[in-house]
């Protein structure tokens, strides 16, 4: 039984990083209906921003802010350089897909050049290495902190979307760009703000995962992007609470497929699940509860 609870802890802490990353993905892919393949690269960049900040001696909360801002600015940059330019010229959305893939590749190449290809780790933090053993289940302070930070980020995003004027603007744009324009919402600025939010969430997720598993590498974003896409399909495109639930679900599914099936089938089960969901609930598992986007 303690093994079950240990796996539960493992799955929740893995899932919390998926959830934070997927919230950003769902804002771009689902709410704005834009395919931005550079989301994984922002995740990787966030991990390096946080790493460099931590190495400069900044305390972890400030390093997280650096990762958030860094990811957010990169997100805005991608909108300004790629997507806005393409929209202005009436480019097809496939062009945005290819251009953002190119951006992601460039960022990975740049990271390789600056930081090298080897895996790096965050400086050892004595405080975060504390762990408790409750009835044979190991819980690390680090896991708790990451879960709390993830929940805070989720609450913050929910607050921004539901209560702030930017959030209302985002939701209006999500409903219809034309309607938004008619009622006087600054569409361009709203899209830019959404890109900032999505990039910041990706950057924060990068730092969280980098800390949790002690791994920072130029290639970490590629796998994460696939996980992010998986989660937003499970949760429903553009459904933020769905992305959160889907993130935790994917983390738990991965862990429990290792625990009770076999580690060799982990990805087969994860992706098999997508197939299944696409077949029976094409709008995501939570489509019944939430019809609006964002």
């Amino acid at each position, binding site marked *: 039984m303690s*093994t079950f609870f240990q796996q539960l802890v*493992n799955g929740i802490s893995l899932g919390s990083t998926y959830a934070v990353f997927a919230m950003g993905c769902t804002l771009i892919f689902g709410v704005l209906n834009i395919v931005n393949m550079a989301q994984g690269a922002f995740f990787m960049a966030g991990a390096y921003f946080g790493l460099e900040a931590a190495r400069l001696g900044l305390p972890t909360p400030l390093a997280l802010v650096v990762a958030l801002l860094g990811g957010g600015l990169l997100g805005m940059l991608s909108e300004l350089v790629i997507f806005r330019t393409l929209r202005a010229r009436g480019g097809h959305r496939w062009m945005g897909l290819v251009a953002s893939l190119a951006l992601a590749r460039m960022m990975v190449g740049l990271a390789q*050049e600056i930081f*090298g*290809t080897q*895996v790096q780790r965050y400086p050892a933090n004595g405080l975060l290495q504390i762990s408790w053993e409750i009835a044979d289940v190991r819980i690390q302070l680090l896991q708790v902190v990451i879960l709390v930070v993830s929940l805070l980020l989720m609450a913050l995003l929910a607050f921004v979307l539901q209560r702030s004027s930017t959030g209302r603007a985002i939701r209006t744009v999500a409903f219809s760009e034309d309607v938004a324009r008619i009622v006087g919402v600054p569409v361009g600025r709203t899209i830019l703000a959404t890109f900032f939010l999505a990039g910041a969430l990706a950057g924060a997720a990068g730092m969280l995962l980098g800390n949790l598993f002690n*791994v920072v*590498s130029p290639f*970490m974003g590629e796998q994460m992007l696939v996980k992010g896409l998986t989660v937003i399909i499970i949760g429903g495109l553009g459904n933020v609470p769905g992305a959160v639930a889907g993130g935790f679900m994917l983390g738990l599914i991965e862990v429990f497929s*290792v625990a009770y099936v076999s580690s060799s089938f982990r990805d087969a089960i994860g992706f098999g699940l997508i197939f299944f969901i696409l077949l029976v609930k094409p709008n995501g598992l939570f489509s019944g509860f939430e019809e609006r986007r964002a």
Partner: protein
Amino acid sequence: MKRSVFALLLSAVGAMAFSSAAMSETLVNIGIVQATSGGSAALYGVMQKNGAELAIEEINASGRLGDYKLIGIHQDDAGDRGQSVNIFQRLINQEKVAVILGPTLATSAFAADPLAQKAGVPVIASSNTAPGITDMGDYIFRTSPPESMVFPGVLAYVKRKYAPKTAAQIYGIDDTLMKSAYAVHKKALESEGIKIVATETFQKGDVDYSAQLTKIKAANPDILVIGGLAEETANIVRQARQLGIPPSTGILGANAAISNKLAELAGDAADGFTVGSGWFIQYDSPKNKAFVAAYRKKYNSDPDNFAAQAYTSVYIVADALKRAGGVSDLKKLRDAIAATKDLEANNGSFSFDDHREPAVAPKVLVMKGGKFILAAD
């Protein structure tokens, strides 16, 4: 960027030296196929490229080859076997290399080595430890002792130290080398009568091993055997200890996990981690001390066993080249390499056995305070 400027300068200097030598020199192209980008593989590739280039520099400076001058041509295959194949073709057909050193990964070797075998160009690997490498043909050699040569020694030491009755295994399922390391480990464990109570796998790029390790912890093995490269092994070791697998459970790794990076990534958790190797840094011989000092001077860091083995590979080529009387006939060069016997190398006296495998005494290493040291018996 800096490196390419350096290379340009180097080739300019080389060109000047070449013209002033009044064309009396014979240039011998040596292909160095090592991953210097592309994740984990680069850990080993950079080390081997460094080791080989250091040896080439030393040999050219010593004048021991008379009019022959070695030219190292490095190509980065990024640990991708498709690229290894392209690079091999280019080195063989365009650069007309006399010998190829590498490639970094066994997976690449199985794809690319047959090309060299067919073309009659000798290949000397210094990091391929999977079984079957030299079975690909009589032009394929390696200076890296295969896992099957070093692991029994590791297990014998661990048996004395932990008296294990049960073991758990975890290995990378999508890598030829790790899969074959797993098979070697399994066979050795079974032949020692150690019961395998859990077998788990992971994949390239994984960072979270907690689910597998939780399962392993529940099986409560006496030892844990990891079939993985250095970066993955480091994280598995660290997460295993974090999940509460006690220090009394010994952790063993594959030869391929040896890297200075392991201690850096795993920290204190790596203390007691045990591996087998053909070389280690404190190996006490004048030749090795000179190698370590020269390496530190040139690269400002410590060599690892892969750097040492690549360095030895070049000395083997130089020695064979002398005995073969040149490189005009690569069959003769191959025969001379195969006849390498009691060459004084940085890990003792080096010979190739009948299967072109290295005949060196394996050593058992244990991690202590961030360094691999020779296991005390």
